[in-house]
């Protein structure tokens, strides 16, 4: 077995006096699909936000592709990572947000093209082709020149996924991507994620409340409770055969 692409080693995170994560240890292998479930406030989102460098851990290490994400070596000592160090690693990670966070002043095609052109310095024509292809794939090939405000929530979220995919990340993070959507729009977004999970070989971490969906696509499911990973294993181990009481209670509430 090869080295995991992401390793969390005893990661803690506090906001002020509130301890959100109390020692997370976690391995994610390349191409592995990981679903993170758990009650709200359990720190699920914080895990992927730290991986995306939006939140700095209070202590512990996050190793991405063999390199420490939040620390770097300087004169033989490990010091806090600077922006340059973060940017080097961040390039391999993409994220889709709960509230889409599309750029409202750009068309959806521009939303997809901006980062590859400016960040990766790729040729415009190539990026355009790839972006159109990706928007086609998420079913929005006919809306290239629309602005985000002209789209439905489900369409916006599909654009957000195309935007992240065009950057060709090795790890994709999904932060409760369906919870801001009207119920009838959830399906179209899950379909796209399912398609990515089946056909792309990147690692995926999904924070989600869609239990059936998680069971269906995840190689590994984590149950996070009160800041620790209370249960982990394959989808069927965790969701169907766990003896953890809190997990049973949690699942019961979700799958009436």
């Amino acid at each position: 077995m090869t080295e995991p692409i992401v390793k969390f080693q005893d990661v803690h995170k506090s906001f002020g006096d509130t301890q959100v994560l109390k020692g997370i240890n976690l391995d994610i292998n390349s191409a592995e699909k990981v679903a993170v479930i758990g009650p709200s406030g359990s720190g699920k989102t914080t895990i992927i936000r730290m991986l995306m460098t939006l939140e700095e851990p209070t202590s512990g290490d996050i190793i991405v592709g063999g390199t420490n994400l939040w620390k770097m070596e300087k004169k033989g000592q490990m010091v806090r990572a600077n922006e340059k160090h973060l940017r080097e690693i961040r390039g391999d990670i993409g994220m889709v947000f709960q509230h889409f966070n599309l750029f409202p002043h750009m068309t959806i095609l521009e939303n997809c093209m901006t980062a590859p052109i400016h960040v990766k310095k790729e040729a415009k024509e190539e990026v355009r082709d790839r972006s159109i292809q990706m928007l086609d794939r998420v079913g929005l090939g006919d809306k290239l020149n629309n602005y985000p405000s002209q789209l439905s929530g489900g369409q916006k979220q599909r654009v957000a996924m195309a935007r992240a995919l065009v950057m060709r990340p090795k790890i994709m993070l999904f932060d409760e991507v369906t919870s801001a959507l009207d119920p009838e729009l959830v399906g179209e977004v899950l379909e796209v994620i399912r398609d990515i999970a089946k056909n792309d070989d990147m690692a995926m971490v999904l924070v989600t409340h869609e239990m059936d969906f998680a069971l269906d696509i995840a190689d590994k499911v984590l149950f996070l409770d009160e800041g620790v990973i209370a249960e982990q294993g394959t989808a069927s181990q965790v969701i169907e055969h766990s003896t953890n009481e809190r997990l049973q209670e949690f699942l019961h509430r979700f799958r009436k």
Partner: protein
Amino acid sequence: MITINAIIEIVPQLSRGLGITISVLLASAVFAYLMAFIAGLCRLSKNIFIRKFTGFYVEVFRGTSLIVQLFWLFYAVPMLFGIELGSNWWIGVIAIGLNYGAYLSEVVRGSILSVAKGQTEAATALNMSSFQRMRLIIFPQAVRMMLPEFGNYTIQILKGTSLVSLIGMNDILYHGDIIRSSNLSQAPLVYFLVLVFYFIIALPLIWLTRKGESISKKGVAS
């Protein structure tokens, strides 16, 4: 009719002040916009000295009146520093520019701060540098939000230009004063026409402000 004849007589005389009024308006507006962006960005700087220093500039110029600043520069600068600012035109432009630049810097700062946090996060997730985040994502949205206030303040700047008549510039109001002093009974018509002159210059600014309002409502993350 006497009034029509009087209008025909007065309008060309007032028009002689148009050049000064408009040139002071344009120059001080450009200067104010420049100061607004410089000071607005400096107040968001990580460096505390830059922040405090620009904060001082903004509070002093917002806390005192334009007319006080204008006279202060007019009388004090040559005395205090022994330098001549060149001409009264420049003193007017600098006073108006510094004054409204201070007000507008608050607009710039507020707009940048009010771009939704999710936008910065999305840009970070796409691995943009902090400069790229500002240039490609935050700034374009903030500028849209600023447009209506920039329009409003440009009208304020136009009104402020009338003060340069007090330091001897031959603007519209100055010419109005000259006509009045030679024929006191014409005062109502003269000053009414002066107001109309200013209003006509203001009309495109009013139109642009409304245009800016409709643009600012679109294309901004809420």
